[in-house]
């Protein structure tokens, strides 16, 4: 990159985190992602403080109103304020994404750990299971799971987290297999370190880069999965708002053709957020990869 930050020049005295930050902050796209994401987060979290309408208030005198001075982004078919629903939908969509990714990280790390430290038989068994879970097209699996779990916030979180851990467990397994043979781990074993000690004192800190990058990119993915499910009517059920089920309204031809604001705003918010998170995730991946300094 063009800007030779002090961090890279005096790298001898800096830790890996500082150097990672140096790489991250010289990545324009990643900073742009951050610049889009932070305002979105602030708006979504703080909306009850500055917006008079709440997402489920029904105003029968203002059905299907176009964006205007009172309802900035218009209202929907039963007179609910689109901006308020957009903000509340953002809360739900982001919560679902973050929680499901957190769960899938725990599952993914543990499964990876079991596979890499459990011996050959366990490893083979677990990895075949992972293969199987990865065979089915994700959306198909999602539909089947969703038909079982039903609609609502909690089932949607369960479905998405059940779907997303296999990829991570593979990456964790590969990393842990490599670590297991490293001298410091062998030494720790020789001194009688327990399995939890090996996993959480040595394994976890040394896989943190995988986990952070995976988490970021997977959150973007989870937002899309939630939106897709809700769009098909299998995710978050109305009256609760989510970006996906707001888009669901556009399956009706009248809404699609005449009340454009009812689905274009949630769609825009969705794409913007996912785009920002993807930029961020890409930046993080480069930042955590020490080899990217060489280019």
């Amino acid at each position, binding site marked *: 990159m063009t800007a030779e930050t002090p961090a890279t020049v005096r790298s001898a005295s800096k830790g890996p985190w500082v150097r990672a930050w140096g790489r991250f902050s010289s990545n324009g796209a990643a900073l742009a992602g951050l610049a889009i994401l932070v305002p979105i987060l602030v708006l979504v979290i703080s909306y009850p403080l500055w917006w008079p309408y709440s997402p489920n208030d029904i105003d029968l005198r203002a059905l299907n109103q176009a964006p205007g001075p009172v309802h900035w982004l218009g209202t929907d078919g039963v007179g609910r304020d689109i901006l308020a629903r957009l903000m509340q939908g953002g809360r739900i969509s982001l919560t679902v994404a973050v929680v499901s990714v957190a769960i899938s990280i725990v599952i993914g790390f543990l499964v990876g750990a079991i596979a890499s430290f459990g011996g050959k038989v366990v490893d083979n068994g677990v990895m075949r299971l992972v293969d*199987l879970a990865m*065979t*089915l*097209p*994700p*959306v*198909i699996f*999602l*539909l*089947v*799971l*969703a*038909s*079982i779990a*039903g609609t609502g916030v909690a089932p949607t979180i369960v479905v998405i987290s059940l779907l997303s851990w296999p990829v991570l467990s593979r990456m964790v397994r590969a990393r842990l297999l490599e670590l297991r043979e490293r001298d410091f781990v062998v030494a720790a074993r020789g001194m009688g370190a327990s399995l939890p000690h090996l996993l959480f004192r040595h394994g976890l800190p040394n896989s943190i880069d995988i986990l952070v990058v995976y988490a970021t990119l997977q959150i*973007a993915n989870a937002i*899309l999965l939630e*939106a*897709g499910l809700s*769009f*098909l*009517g*299998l995710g978050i059920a109305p009256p609760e708002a989510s970006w996906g089920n707001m*888009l669901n309204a*556009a*399956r009706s*031809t009248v809404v*699609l*053709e005449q009340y*454009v604001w009812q*689905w274009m705003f949630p*769609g825009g918010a*969705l*794409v913007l957020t*996912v*785009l920002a998170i*993807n*930029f961020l995730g890409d930046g993080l991946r480069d930042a955590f990869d020490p080899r990217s300094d060489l280019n």
Partner: protein
Amino acid sequence: MVLALSVLVFILLRLAPGDPIDAYVNPASPLSPDAMQALRDRLGLDAPLPVQYFGWLRAAVTGDLGFSIQRVGVPVLPLVLERIGPTLLLMAAGLAIAIVVGITAGIISAVRRNSPTDIGFSVLAFVGISSPAFLTALLGLYFFSVQLRWAPSGGMLTPGAGFSLGDLLAHLVLPACLLSIGHAALIMRYMRASLLEVLNQDYVRTARAKGVREFFVIVKHAVRNALLPVITLIGSTIGIAVGGAIFIESVFNWPGMGLLLVNAVETRDYPVIMGATLVIGATVIVVNLLTDITYAAVDPRIQVA
């Protein structure tokens, strides 16, 4: 693999809450408990799970996937088979567009690295990856069918009119293009990265030093090798394309597997869900196998074991 898949799907579906019998019963005139039990017996819903599974499997091997619970008397197999054609058509068209567009854009981007064209393509690719299929489908439907009226707004053929190729193509173009967006973006990014790596290699420099014209250096020397990882990518993302097809089908009312599956899930029609999932899963496994074979054919370094 397919067998394991069928067990998984079977177990998952039987965990589902709700009784498929309920769908038979008109809430206004409830059946007597005896009649409902008779119905359960006839459909075999009370047998132990392994019995149900093996009964289903034995029939499935001979091509009998049972009957739809919702549409009484309609066997699943023809129901699924008649949907394969439209879905394959849609996916093949979408994939073809994605491959052509993605690879071309990837090559242009890599050759004119860091030019405005490259940056433009890369940003577009990022937007393409970040937009879900159903949103691009809605936008496409809105602009091209509603606003501009260039394309019909759904279905595969104009109802009432006889079959004609032109009519089919007119209905196909928009969904196929929209389906290709996400894929084209992915292929473009891989192609760009892969070609950039190849262009740095010694044999490319040798070719240039020999005086080979730049066009041939790229097309004959670099692109062939750069295509290898892209082929793997295309194979391994078929599953994602299936997912995209489901959304496109449900927005455009395209009579394919996706629409069938979504409707079946909505009405808890277990035999149809299982049949459709099995066929889709098996197709994906076969496509992955084909990709591996293609890979070996393109890259002589790989020996088929």
